[in-house]
């Protein structure tokens, strides 16, 4: 677990700092190469999005100077940069990466984009060989965890903007929005956005009314809709299923008697008023009518924030998944960690055995094949019996996260240290040559 992670995100650093660290896509491969060439770093990759810049590395001894790399690479002084940095090692780095990939660390928790961005960064780094063994495993696991979080919790399911809440509410009333008619009263940015969302979900026709008729025409043209003179508002309004109203009128423009007229003409088919005007355009009296559903800006805002708190609940669930996944990943890595030690322990004792047999062979004189087999079996038996406890201890230790200590002890006891290091170096050489 010699993972190290350093970076800034939207919580830790203001935009000005993130801007200076941001790495354009075209420069990513070079940055990865620089990173892996930096002392103490075996593998490394860079995640750079508008909300975060992070270096994820696997290091030689778990304490590479990643801050130094950032200072050098971006030519920033420690005073400028360090207050905004966060750095994680080992298990914490794994947890952080899992959270990032699962979109729990995002500005909008649960947004789906981040996973794609991490995957791209991974692909880039992998293509140039900056990600190989350990990081490869870490990232494959992170993607699997993200998938699990997405499928087992509702973190990514509900929408958050006012416009999309309006769409969802409309769907709760009308079922499908196909063929429904929208009426925009008072042209404005927000009503335009809401209308756009509604159209995208199936609404087909649109009316626009505005005090200044020209603006109504302008907006109606954008949607291929029909501009209505403001004086004709009450006569046409009942043709709409959804009314988005945002006039600057000082008093409510839709009053109870209007609502009653509309409903009578519509044979009581329900109407949905999205009232984003302040002060409100729909009178509370009208909102009470059966068949009139009115959501003002506060109601919508509340629906949005309840979504956010729903997400928070789901996020807790997701955090639990991440915690268990970090444990699992750690256990798996440790099991892998003890394997080379076990192998070199076996190699070591086998060498001793062979040497001892060779040494006494002269003194034993010529042996019958049966005797040869007996000696072989005797020595092997002794070694296996001796090795049994250390190997089982190693294997159990691997699962209980004290592997590093036990591995260390076993290596020292049997003087395996140098040998193991040299084999791993050899392995690395082979890999780099490939």
């Amino acid at each position, binding site marked *: 677990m010699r993972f190290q992670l350093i970076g800034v995100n939207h919580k830790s650093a203001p935009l000005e700092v993130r801007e200076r660290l941001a790495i354009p896509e075209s420069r990513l491969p070079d940055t990865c190469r620089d990173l892996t060439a930096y002392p103490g770093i075996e593998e490394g990759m860079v995640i750079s999005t508008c909300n975060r810049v992070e270096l994820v590395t696997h290091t030689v001894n778990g304490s590479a100077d990643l801050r130094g790399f950032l200072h050098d690479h971006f030519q920033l002084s420690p005073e400028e940069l360090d207050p905004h940095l966060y750095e994680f090692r080992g298990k914490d780095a794994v947890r952080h990466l899992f959270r990032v990939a699962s979109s729990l660390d995002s500005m909008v928790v649960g947004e789906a984009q981040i996973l794609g961005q991490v995957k791209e960064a991974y692909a880039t780094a992998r293509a140039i060989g900056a990600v190989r063994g350990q990081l490869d495993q870490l990232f494959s696991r992170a993607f699997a965890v993200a998938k699990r979080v997405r499928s087992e919790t509702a973190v990514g399911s*509900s929408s958050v903007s006012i416009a999309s*809440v309006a769409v*969802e*509410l409309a*769907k*709760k*009333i*009308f*079922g*499908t929005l196909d063929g429904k008619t929208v009426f925009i009263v008072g042209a404005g940015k927000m009503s335009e956005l809401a209308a756009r969302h509604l159209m995208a979900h199936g609404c087909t026709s649109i009316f626009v009314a505005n005090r200044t008729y020209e603006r109504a025409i302008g907006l109606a043209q954008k949607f291929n809709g029909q501009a209505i003179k403001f004086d004709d508002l009450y006569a046409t309004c009942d043709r709409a299923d959804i009314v988005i109203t945002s006039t600057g009128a000082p008093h409510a423009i839709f009053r109870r008697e209007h609502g009653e007229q509309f409903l*009578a003409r*519509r*044979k*009581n*088919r*329900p109407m949905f008023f999205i009232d984003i005007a302040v002060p409100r355009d729909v009178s509370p009296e009208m909102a009470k009518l*059966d*068949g009139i*559903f009115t*959501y003002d800006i506060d*109601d919508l805002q*509340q*629906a949005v924030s*309840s*979504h956010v708190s*729903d997400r928070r609940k789901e996020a807790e669930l997701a955090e639990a998944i991440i915690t268990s996944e970090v444990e699992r990943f750690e256990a798996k890595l440790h099991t892998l960690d003890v394997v080379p030690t076990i192998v070199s322990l076996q190699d070591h004792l086998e060498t001793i055995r062979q040497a001892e047999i060779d040494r006494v062979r002269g003194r034993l004189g010529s042996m019958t094949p049966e005797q040869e087999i007996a000696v072989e079996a005797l020595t092997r038996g002794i070694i296996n019996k001796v090795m049994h406890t250390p190997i089982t201890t190693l294997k159990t230790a691997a699962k209980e996260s004290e592997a590093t200590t036990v591995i260390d002890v076993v290596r020292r006891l049997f003087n395996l240290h140098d040998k193991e290091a040299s084999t791993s170096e050899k392995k690395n050489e082979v890999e780099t040559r490939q």
Partner: protein
Amino acid sequence: MSLLWLRFALACYFVGLVYAFVALTRTSDLFSRVALHAASLGMVFHFVSLTEVFLSGHVVWASVHNGESLLAFFSMTFFMIVYAIYQTTSPGVVVFPVVFFLTFVAAIDEQPVLLTQFVSHKGWLAAHIFLIFIGYAALLVSFGASLLYLLQERRLKAKKPSSLISFLPALEVIDQIGYRSLLLGFPFMTLGLLTGSVVAISTYGHLDFLDPKILLSLLMWVVYMLMVFTRWNSGWRGRRAAFLATFAFVAALAAWAANYFSAIHRFGA
């Protein structure tokens, strides 16, 4: 034997009953699927039970319990049709408890065959029972839908954020379920009453309009017609429609209960 199968069906419907209560407080996709499967299985048992009654050669369904069993089966069939079209189990909130109750009563014991005075009009009697029960089942679903409509309307009006994640389908969908059931049930109900009149007239020679059964049936039919009319004419829905539906439902219950004190429709010797 038919009673045994019916009791199996009852056990399955019990799952639906539990669902009906749970669904009101929380949304669980898994549970609604379990309830749906249990209900389908229950219908299979139920069908076997009804077939056995039929094959036993008795005068069709002319015992109260067999009648209740048949009505429960039709109601379930209606529920399944609604599910097939709208992919929602929410009408089960009303349908399941009623079906469970009917099946429960029917599964208590076997009853002697009654309504023996109509034996000479077997065909008409069977038609009457079938038609009227389909009408009842449609009315039940429509009634359930109007309650759900009220519930959903309240939730949307109260602006509770939970309305966005509720198990209820969209308001217009509930409305459609209710209205379509109403429209579908009306001809069955009308024809059912007509065939019933035919049986009564040919048995007694005239229709006694003061008999509670006939009076209440007529009242129910008038309310039913009123519902269809107001809906068609002025699109009544929500509270007013729910009141009417409740009224029609109560009238239907009363008409059913009249069996116990009607001179001509008595399930008794």
